[in-house]
């Protein structure tokens, strides 16, 4: 299985500020994904990040709010901009490991916005 790390593991932020979350994978992958899990809820895909191209955002998520970088095949960042308490969630990155193995998830970043 893939080894995925995320930084920070948790943070408490003030409204109006921005937080950048890092995701590092132990080997090169084509596609990386960012999900949000609101308290007590399921996971929702925010965007797909491919190296060398703009991220593809799902309905309801926009680049101005969640800018994503993918500078190489092992690393990606997600920024949560101009935060409000409604952004309090767990943010998870994942990688695709092939059709038969599916997606592996990072440990998540637990964000609380006050």
């Amino acid at each position, binding site marked *: 299985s893939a080894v995925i790390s995320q930084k920070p593991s948790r943070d408490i932020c003030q409204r109006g500020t921005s937080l950048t979350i890092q995701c590092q994978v132990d080997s090169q992958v084509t596609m990386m994904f960012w999900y949000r899990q609101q308290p007590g809820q*399921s996971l929702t895909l925010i965007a797909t990040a491919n190296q060398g191209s703009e991220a593809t955002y799902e309905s309801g998520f926009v680049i101005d709010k969640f800018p994503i970088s993918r500078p190489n095949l092992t690393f990606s960042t997600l920024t949560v901009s101009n935060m409000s308490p409604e952004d309090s969630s767990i943010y998870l990155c994942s990688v695709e490991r092939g059709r038969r193995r*599916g*997606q592996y998830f990072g440990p998540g970043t637990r964000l609380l916005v006050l």
Partner: protein
Amino acid sequence: ELKVEQNPLFLSMQEGKNYTIYCNYSTTSDRLYWYRQDPGKSLESLFVLLSNGAVKQEGRLMASLDTKARLSTLHITAAVHDLSATYFCAVDYDSSGSRLTFGEGTQLTVNP
């Protein structure tokens, strides 16, 4: 829009009992995942089901997929306390094979 529905959403059962969690989805797909999430933890991949009729088993858990009925089941046999967790099914609805839609999750509690 793909919809994925699980039931039950909450399940409390006694050790030693059997039960089934159901996952229905609304659009044709031939790839379905089951994940486990412990409180405060990330998701652990349990099963990847790739075709109609696929059945996979690991320990006390067995998952199956019926693509014609758009239904997957996760069967728990002789439950033990260690199986207490939230279980998610997720369906791959994109032809590129990577965009997942998750069910609401089933919170399982196994009581001694």
